[in-house]
């Protein structure tokens, strides 16, 4: 086992899949240099015909992926910031999501839309979004939100091999996170949640950076409350069965996610748990999300985005215990 950063784990996934299948290529603005380092070094190995720098046009990036996928390729298109997906909303949410379905299953769209999600870098309202619920809401798109280097590599390899459009959000604040990644080949399947920490008193379902926050909080309070941290890893497909099983054990649920609270990931997961396991709940579930505001830049960013303290407060609320040191 090696200890490598999340960013390098993603780079390895791309390089391995490009070497494995000549139909795989990368396209986006400045993917040759790699704005976040995720696609860096690929052009030296695979050349500019398979690592395509486009003009500044998210629509052209998305269209290239969409069209090439229909024509038999397996493109990986990088949007840079997740916020920029909105610019190509028609191509991602309307076309890519619907076209296999709308054409009676006669075309396939094996493509990956990569984008950096998340705040914490004080980049302001148009470079800090985590639009997971937008993607989750749209039938026809799969969604991966890895929280560790191991998952980032394994999920990206699965995403590239999937015969459907996959949105893959890598979190900006996780790119430097180091973690164990095996030398040997592996993939992480979609729709299989991972119990990142076992516990018995409360279930915290978390995505991306919030998984790391939840693990830190769980460790801090471990002498007073036993927290189970579940990472769904993919939000579509969603492994609701594993979440329900955990809630049946703990009786308490917190969902921590960085997207806006209203109509968000937490709302969806909590609703599904209530529908499936209402009688198992010993307390009302809690959401930990971004406030229903645009994400501000500068020092006040933290007042809108969920923090470890927000997760702690939610655990206190659902357990009725005072946990602050």
């Amino acid at each position: 086992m090696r200890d490598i950063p999340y960013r390098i784990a993603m780079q390895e996934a791309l390089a391995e899949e490009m070497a494995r299948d000549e139909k795989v290529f990368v396209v986006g603005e400045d993917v040759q240099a790699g704005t976040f380092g995720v696609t860096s070094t690929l052009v030296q190995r695979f050349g500019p015909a398979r690592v395509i720098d486009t003009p500044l046009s998210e629509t052209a990036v998305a269209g290239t992926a969409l069209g090439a996928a229909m024509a038999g390729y397996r493109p990986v298109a990088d949007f840079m910031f997740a916020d920029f997906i909105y610019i190509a909303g028609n191509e991602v949410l309307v076309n890519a999501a619907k076209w296999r379905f709308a054409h009676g299953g006669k075309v396939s769209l094996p493509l990956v839309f990569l984008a950096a999600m998340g705040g914490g870098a004080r980049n302001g309202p148009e470079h800090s979004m985590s639009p997971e619920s937008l993607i989750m809401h749209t039938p026809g798109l799969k969604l991966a939100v890895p929280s560790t280097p191991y998952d980032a590599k394994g999920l990206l390899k699965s995403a590239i091999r999937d015969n459907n459009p996959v949105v893959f959000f890598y979190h900006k604040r996780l790119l430097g996170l180091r973690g164990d990644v095996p030398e040997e080949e592996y993939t992480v399947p979609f729709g299989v949640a991972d119990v990142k920490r076992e516990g018995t008193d409360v279930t915290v379902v978390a995505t991306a950076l919030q998984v790391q926050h939840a693990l830190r909080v769980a460790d801090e309070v471990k002498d007073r409350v036993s927290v189970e941290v579940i990472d769904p890893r993919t939000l579509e497909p969603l492994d609701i069965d594993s979440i329900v099983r955990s809630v049946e054990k703990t009786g308490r649920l917190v969902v921590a996610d960085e997207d806006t609270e209203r109509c968000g990931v937490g709302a969806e997961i909590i609703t599904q748990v209530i529908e499936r396991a209402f009688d198992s709940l010993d307390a009302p579930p809690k959401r930990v999300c971004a406030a229903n505001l645009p994400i501000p830049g500068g020092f006040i960013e933290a007042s809108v985005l969920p923090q470890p303290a927000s997760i702690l407060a939610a655990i206190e609320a659902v357990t009725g215990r005072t946990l602050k040191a």
Partner: protein
Amino acid sequence: MPLSNEQLKTLYANMVRARRFDEKIVQGIADGKTVSFFHSGLGEEAVGVGGCAFLRPDDFVWYHHRGHGIGHIIAKGGSPREFVAEHFGKATGACNGVAGFHFVDPEHGMLGFSGTIGSAFPVTLGWGVAAKMNNRGQAVVCFFGDGASNRGTLHEAMNMASVMKLPIAWVCENNLYAQFMPLRDAFASEDIANLAIPYGMPSQTVDGQDVVAVHEAVQWAVERARAGEGPSLVECKTYRFRAHSEGAPDVAHFELRPPEEVEEWKRRDPILLFRERLLGEEVATASELDGIDAEAAAEADEAERFAMESPPPDASILSELLYAR
């Protein structure tokens, strides 16, 4: 190379077939057989038929909104029977009755369609990237209307296609109206072909009622594409004989389209013009052309019967359509 007499007769036959099938869908609205809306292409047959005639089966075609592409589809080798069945909402339709009006036939280079105007450009850009990577002389022919030329996607895709020298023939089917909006009030230049200039493309403007002129211009663009010379733009000046969609008012803004304008264009019916030419140049006899007319009518009747006898799709297929395995 001048077209042979057989090829000229094929152009005639395909225009007549396109018209009979278009009329079937129009009549189907009145009869309650056509389940969705319909945007008749009567009067514009020369563009789709001339533009798609004698392409290679593996050339990609993005057909056009007018007539829902019936002329393009027929000329490219698609099944008009599946076209009718799709419009009648039947399981035997091109998209298994799921789309209502889209057509798909990957074997004949028709990978799909969109209901959002301007989607044509980014996706065909992607087909162009795929065609270039395939490196076997494939061309992409993208038909779009004067209305679509108002979209920013045109700029983004045309710019990147020119930068990458992609094998794309952009073909504007300019019928002077986008729904109720006259081109003169929506487009800042006299000719859509002028859009070639900023992207460093050559262009041709042709009489869209002359099927041979359309064919020759599109063929010129396709030959350039095959030779690796990059994209070109062809503007075909044409006119729709019917309203924007069946049941919609036939207006420019809110007033009726000028009757003298409509009459003037109807005198330039592409089928009548071409019939006179074939007879005048003694390419075919009147009885030969009458025979073609009768065959087309019988083919459309047969397709209508086939569609009416076909079952609607079963809703059980829907969950299977969302994702490919």
